[in-house]
């Protein structure tokens, strides 16, 4: 919602462009390898990933501009690494506000300062705050530059019918209706996904009780970028308040509604202004401010049982809704899009068997369940659902005033990448722990004399080899797309990966470790690669 007197898209800092429906009607119904419903951040990331593999796609968006309703702001390092894979990281780096730490307060006294993992080996900071409008605008700039992406605004998918080897979409735009045959459909059409409904699926899971007002304001203040969490502040007894800084002097204030506080009344402009003013006085922000936008939110953990339905894949919010605490909603959506994107790219280029696509649900649904586990811990601290959890939360907060250990319960446990341990594409771990990343884990970045390890990875799979690997012949068919990255057996990369002479790691296009060998040889690697590209097998070492 916007303050009285301002139009729906009249922002204090962002100009929403208006995009027309396609005028050239000649080839609208030409069959396409991949159709993507929804040009939000997830749909656009999927299109950009496919384009990276040379795959054309059609992006269908019902609206005529970027999202105004959904408001992600925290973009995690893993997403920046992914943007780098797509070659689009620069505007995100230029505009995003990096941050590494946050502070929590109980009744005005600091009980926790947390620091997210960071080191000189990381190219990007753990988190960047960036308004979703900019996220979409930067992705759209890249989409518009790509010859492979056919972006169709004001184009609504009104039907999906299965056909042999694909689906036929019914599309409606201001100029008429038409059919669009596609080999594959990615449903990136959001939390209320019409495609999910058309296919007869629904999200399953739980709703949490706590309701939050989320409000954006403009306020000029020069200070360190960090996250504030206020528990039981004088301005909102019994409630919690979260404060994040965003670019363009925009601040996000989230505050919890009281049990029984009527939502309609709480969302009226004067109530919002009073709630925001109280939160600001609590943290000593005395500067004048303007109200930009507000909404209401309650935490849910909802997901689909299967992210795939024949030729349709669900990505982002259409597949899962996660609580805001821990900033995993959009970040996991980006990963969904990239995950299915590279796999479809391989299949459509004839480099992998379609069976590889069956790894999408276990990998990404597994990640969602892991998010639920962590986010639920945060949610039950922020908005306890029972007397027992309320008593323990209160016990932890009051102890934390004098005992720092108890403040850790208030740590938001922000996004960390999920390990694809049970994926059919992951090497069965039969090796003793060596301290290096396990198969399925996110590969660690390493600072080199000139740049970072990730800057040197190939566009596809990369074999990170320490010293000489016997019998390795990259002309072999199964190794055709492999980039060989040779590193000294003693050096920063070997140390980070706990590898020695003759060891090797196989790194996937999405920066997860597929396999590792303490003593690699060409035939083992070729055999493993062959099985990965065959998709279904759970390869043995």
């Amino acid at each position, binding site marked *: 919602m916007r303050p009285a007197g301002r139009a729906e898209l009249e922002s204090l800092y962002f100009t929403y462009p208006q995009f027309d429906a396609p005028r050239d009607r000649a080839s609208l119904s030409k069959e396409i390898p991949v159709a993507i419903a929804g040009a939000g951040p997830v749909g656009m990331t999927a299109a950009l990933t496919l384009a990276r593999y040379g795959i054309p796609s059609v992006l269908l968006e019902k609206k005529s501009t970027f999202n105004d309703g959904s408001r992600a702001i925290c973009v995690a390092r893993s997403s920046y690494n992914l943007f780098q894979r797509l070659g689009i990281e620069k505007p995100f780096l230029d505009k995003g506000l990096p941050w590494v730490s946050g502070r929590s307060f109980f009744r005005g006294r600091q009980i926790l300062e947390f620091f997210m993992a960071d080191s000189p080996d990381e190219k990007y900071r753990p988190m960047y705050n960036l308004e979703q409008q900019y996220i979409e605008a930067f992705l759209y700039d890249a989409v518009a530059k790509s010859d492979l992406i056919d972006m169709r605004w004001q184009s609504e998918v009104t039907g999906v019918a299965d056909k042999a080897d694909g689906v036929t979409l019914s599309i409606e735009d201001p100029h008429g209706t038409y059919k669009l045959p596609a080999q594959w459909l990615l449903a990136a059409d959001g939390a209320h996904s019409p495609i999910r409904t058309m296919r007869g699926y629904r999200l399953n899971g739980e709703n949490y009780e706590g309701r939050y007002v989320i409000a954006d304001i403009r306020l000029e203040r020069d200070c360190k970028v960090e996250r504030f969490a206020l528990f039981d502040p004088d301005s909102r007894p019994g409630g919690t308040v979260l404060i994040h800084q965003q670019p363009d002097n925009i601040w996000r204030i989230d505050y919890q509604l009281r049990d029984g506080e009527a939502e309609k009344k709480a969302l009226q402009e004067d109530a919002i202004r009073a709630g925001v003013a109280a939160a600001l006085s609590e943290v000593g922000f005395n500067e004048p401010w303007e109200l930009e936008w507000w909404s209401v939110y309650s935490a849910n953990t909802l997901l689909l049982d299967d992210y795939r339905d024949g030729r349709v894949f669900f990505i982002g919010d259409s597949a899962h809704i996660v609580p805001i605490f821990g900033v995993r909603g959009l970040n996991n959506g980006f990963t969904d899009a990239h995950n299915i994107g590279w796999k479809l790219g391989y299949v459509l280029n004839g480099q992998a068997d379609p069976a590889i696509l069956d790894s999408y649900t276990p990998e990404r649904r597994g990640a969602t369940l892991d998010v639920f586990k962590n986010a639920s811990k945060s949610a039950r601290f922020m908005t306890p659902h029972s007397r027992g959890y309320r008593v*323990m939360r*209160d*016990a*932890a907060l*009051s102890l934390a005033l004098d005992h720092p250990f108890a403040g850790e319960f208030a740590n938001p446990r922000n996004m960390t990448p999920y390990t694809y341990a049970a994926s059919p594409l992951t090497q069965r771990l039969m090796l003793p722990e060596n301290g290096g990343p396990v198969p399925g884990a996110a590969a660690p970045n390493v600072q080199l004399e000139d740049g970072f390890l990730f800057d040197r990875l190939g566009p596809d799979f990369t074999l990170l080899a320490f010293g000489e690997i016997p019998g390795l012949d990259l002309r072999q068919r199964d190794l055709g797309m492999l980039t060989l990255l040779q590193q000294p057996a003693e050096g920063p990369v070997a140390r980070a990966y706990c590898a020695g002479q003759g060891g090797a790691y196989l790194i996937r296009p999405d920066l997860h470790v597929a396999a590792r060998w303490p003593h690699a040889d060409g035939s083992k690697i070729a055999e493993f690669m062959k099985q990965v590209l065959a998709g279904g097998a759970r390869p043995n070492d």
Partner: protein
Amino acid sequence: MTEKTMEDVYSALADGIDAAGPEKEALFLAKTVLLLANENPDTDRVCELIRSACDNLDGMRSNSTS
């Protein structure tokens, strides 16, 4: 070395519950357990003991007439 006995622990808890009052006694006991658990490196044992405290949650029956 230690001079306090289990009897002292017993009365410290009783005094704490009385001082907290019925409204705050759960909070007081929860804080007590968290503090003790934080100093016990065997977290498995702590969880086991907490679970065993859930057994037989019956004290003496009230003998008041009202």
